[in-house]
């Protein structure tokens, strides 16, 4: 008999309710009917443990506080009937008779939770109206019931949701859940939630214990709660009447604030490094083409964009032909993006830029024209809208440190990726034959030419290398933000700033300038907002260049120009 089985395993029924709860509204009715039918069997089979009529009565009443309290108390029963009453309340199927009895109405049948009996719905019953405040309380209470789910992830999610805020009415429920919880990850979360809920307890010793228990928390949403306890009302009395609780609250608040401040600093540091790695990848190619070769390439941003679109194309290819290996698309995208951008760069160098060596201002204008053409080409090939590039599974999610700070994997991977690219560039420039030629040509073009270096070829290869690295930068950018035809435009000013600040022709300078700007930006943002921080940085760079036109790491020399 299904009812009896369900009766022996209360968890089964609850998970059925949860499934219903999680289903979209369309299926709600059907599931609800199924559940009601099941419940009828249950009632037939068992002597039902009904809900006390005194608990239900306030729901039909007018007093809003009493109604919310009743919701909490019903939820604390943590049984199937409680869930049924609450979900009826939520779905507007809970009715009240004129004499104050509460009925769950389904079609023409009415079920009385106080007796557990079903009968045809009587005349003159009235729907119980639910205002927003009550609805919030009902939803909170139903979320609390999920703490008893069989599914561990379900319980974990419910416990996490409770971290955002609880009230005193939920305390018994949480304590009950805590008693039967065995999971090591969920348990501390529940302890924290129980303490938070207990903060509103009428008993000062419970409150004090709760405050002390919370001193290990790093939950930012506790801060206003604790602060409010220490505030004085208009009549001069504290919100928290008991002095010992207040003293404990001061201690907890201090600890909490210290921990939060530390978390914030660590978070800023991380996001600063992350921004720095993005700037570095965007600027590294430019450090070669502008820094070493002296070419003002305004189309550099578009080479980044081409790298990002190459990543997108790889993703499309894998989705269509190799869906099983989709997560590997990014690894394939790296060489593809490098080659795509390098090829475009080499074509540009051979057709346009090489005719303009020694005329930087003309190069600037011509490459700007190229950037317009590249942007419009991408727009006609892929559309003007942003395209969607998804993180592979191994790059999504993150690790949680210090309780609340989430460091996302894609940012961590990109930080290390940027350092690896710098290392490779350094090796190419300093340890390979090509690097030797590049350095020779940039230091003394005519002498290199005389000793037999094919300077034209070296120019082409160097420009191709710089462009290809921009393509790699594009792969990284595609993992962090939107990919659209305008992607490059937002990085071109930043890239030039990094290279100029770092000192032209200085790889180490570029690295330090990129991470420095990233950090400064992230530490300014909380004070000034993102836009003003950016403006402040630009102003800072403009002033800095006035002071040190050669950048941070200038080569020492005596030439006039």
């Amino acid at each position: 008999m299904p009812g009896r089985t369900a009766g022996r395993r209360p968890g089964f029924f609850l998970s059925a309710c949860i499934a219903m709860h999680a289903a979209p509204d369309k299926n709600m009715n059907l599931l609800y009917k199924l559940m009601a039918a099941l419940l009828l069997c249950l009632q037939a089979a068992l002597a039902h443990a009904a809900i006390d009529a005194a608990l239900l009565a306030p729901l039909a009443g007018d007093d809003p506080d009493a109604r919310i309290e009743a919701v909490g108390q019903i939820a604390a029963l943590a049984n199937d009937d409680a869930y049924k009453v609450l979900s009826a309340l939520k779905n507007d199927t809970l009715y009240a008779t004129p004499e104050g009895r509460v009925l769950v109405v389904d079609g023409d049948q009415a079920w009385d939770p106080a007796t557990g009996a079903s009968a045809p719905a009587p005349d003159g019953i009235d729907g119980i109206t639910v205002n927003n405040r009550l609805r919030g309380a009902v939803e909170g209470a139903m979320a609390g019931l999920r703490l008893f789910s069989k599914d561990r992830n379900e319980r974990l999610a419910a416990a996490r949701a409770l971290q955002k805020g609880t009230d005193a009415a939920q305390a018994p429920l949480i304590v009950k859940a805590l008693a039967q919880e065995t999971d090591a990850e969920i348990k501390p979360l529940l302890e924290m939630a129980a303490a938070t809920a207990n903060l509103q307890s009428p008993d000062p010793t419970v409150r004090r214990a709760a405050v002390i228990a919370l001193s290990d928390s790093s939950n930012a949403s506790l801060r206003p709660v604790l602060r409010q306890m220490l505030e004085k009302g208009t009549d001069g009395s504290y919100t928290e009447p008991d002095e010992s609780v207040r003293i404990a609250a001061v201690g907890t608040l201090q600890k909490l604030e210290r921990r939060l401040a530390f978390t914030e600093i660590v978070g800023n540091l991380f996001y600063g490094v992350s921004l720095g790695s993005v700037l570095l990848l965007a600027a590294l190619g430019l450090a070669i083409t502008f820094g070493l070769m002296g070419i003002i390439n305004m189309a550099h941003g578009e080479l980044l964009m081409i790298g990002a679109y190459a990543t997108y194309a790889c993703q499309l290819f894998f989705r269509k032909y190799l869906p099983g290996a989709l997560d590997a698309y990014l690894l394939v995208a790296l060489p593809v993006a490098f080659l795509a951008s390098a090829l475009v760069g080499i074509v540009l160098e051979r057709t346009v830029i090489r005719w303009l060596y020694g005329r930087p201002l003309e190069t600037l204008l011509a490459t700007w024209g190229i950037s317009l053409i590249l942007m419009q080409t991408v727009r006609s090939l892929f559309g003007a809208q942003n395209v969607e590039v998804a993180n592979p599974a191994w790059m999504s999610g993150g690790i949680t440190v210090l309780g609340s700070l989430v460091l996302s994997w894609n940012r961590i991977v990109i930080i290390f990726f940027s350092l690896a690219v710098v290392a490779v560039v350094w090796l190419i420039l300093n340890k390979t034959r090509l690097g030797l030629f590049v350095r020779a040509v940039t230091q003394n073009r005519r002498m290199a030419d005389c000793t037999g270096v094919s300077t034209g070829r070296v120019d082409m290869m160097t420009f191709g290398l710089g462009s290809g690295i921009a393509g790699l930068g594009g792969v990284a950018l595609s993992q962090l933000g939107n990919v659209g035809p305008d992607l490059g435009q937002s990085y071109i000013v930043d890239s030039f700033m990094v290279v100029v600040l770092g000192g032209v022709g200085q790889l180490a300078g570029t690295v330090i300038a990129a991470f420095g700007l990233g950090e400064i930006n992230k530490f300014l943002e909380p004070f000034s907002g993102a836009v003003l921080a950016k403006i402040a940085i630009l102003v800072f760079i403009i002033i800095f260049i006035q002071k040190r036109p050669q950048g941070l790491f200038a080569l020492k020399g005596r030439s006039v120009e």
Partner: protein
Amino acid sequence: MKTTLFSRPAWAGILACALLLALLPVFNLAFEPGHPLHVSSYMVALIGKFMCYAMAALALDLVWGYTGILSLGHGVFFALGGYAHGMYLMRAIGRDGVYQSNLPDFMVFLDWKTYPWFWSMTDSFWYSMLLVVAVPGVLAFVFGYFAFRSRIKGVYFSIITQAMTFAFMLLFFRNNTGFGGNNGFTDFKRILGHAITSPSTKAALYLVTLGMLLGALILCRWIVRSKLGRVLQAVRDSESRLMFIGYNPLWFKLFVWTLSAVLCGIAGALYVPQVGIINPSEMSPGNSIEMVIWAAVGGRGTLLGPIIGAFSVNGLKSWFTGAFPDLWLYALGLLFILVTLFMPQGILGLAGKLRRQKEAA
């Protein structure tokens, strides 16, 4: 050195062109639509806009073509002049806005109760005219002083002017900056008590713009023909040699840079009432570079060149965006490349070359 600014045929040509341009709004007002001599209002508005662009290109060429300083930030001066005048135009709306408040609609929207300090006195037309000159002028002076004093030149100067443009654009996109955020200023109603949409007001604005353009041309011609102008060209051709001779280029560069910014600001101020809107996208780096291409196409290092360039590039743009909107950016991009590769002296340079070839033959 010749005593007159232009040769006799040049004077005749310039005045003939000016007269022709001046007749357009007159023909627009005097003849009914459908009459063979009627000029459409669209045409008058378009040419009025082009004249503002031409003035900006002229200002830009004074620093680029004659002094060798390539600015990628003249869009800021243009837009600041426009905003300075736009403040007056916004005040002149009075209570006719959507919210019928004394404050402009965007301030009502932000729930501001009074004007911020920098809006004070902008209800006066003449004060706003002062701002049109002073704001770009002071900004250029301060920026230029620090840049030129530390001898930033060439592409470095270009890049930091672009960074300046970018910073200003971000600043003006913020709603809280107090200049209407990304919508900027629009829905102007009147200027000096005249309805801004009436044909006669439009004709008057057009004629004022023409007069200013002509004045700017003569002023620039006077400067480049003077001894000052020769020093400026020396800065362009060999700054270090000029310094060894004993000149300090700082003040020469600063003068021409500030003057150029002021001219550009005036062009912006004339542009706003004719177009009816000013918003921060005018400050986007792309707009400033487009100004450079006007001067490059016409012929840098000449004064008529930028004017011809502004008219031809923008004429082409109007035609392209009407006929093949998707192809315009290709065309503009190609224009940048082809002009720098094959026509470094622009249309005027090409014309001069052809004439010399003819004479030689």
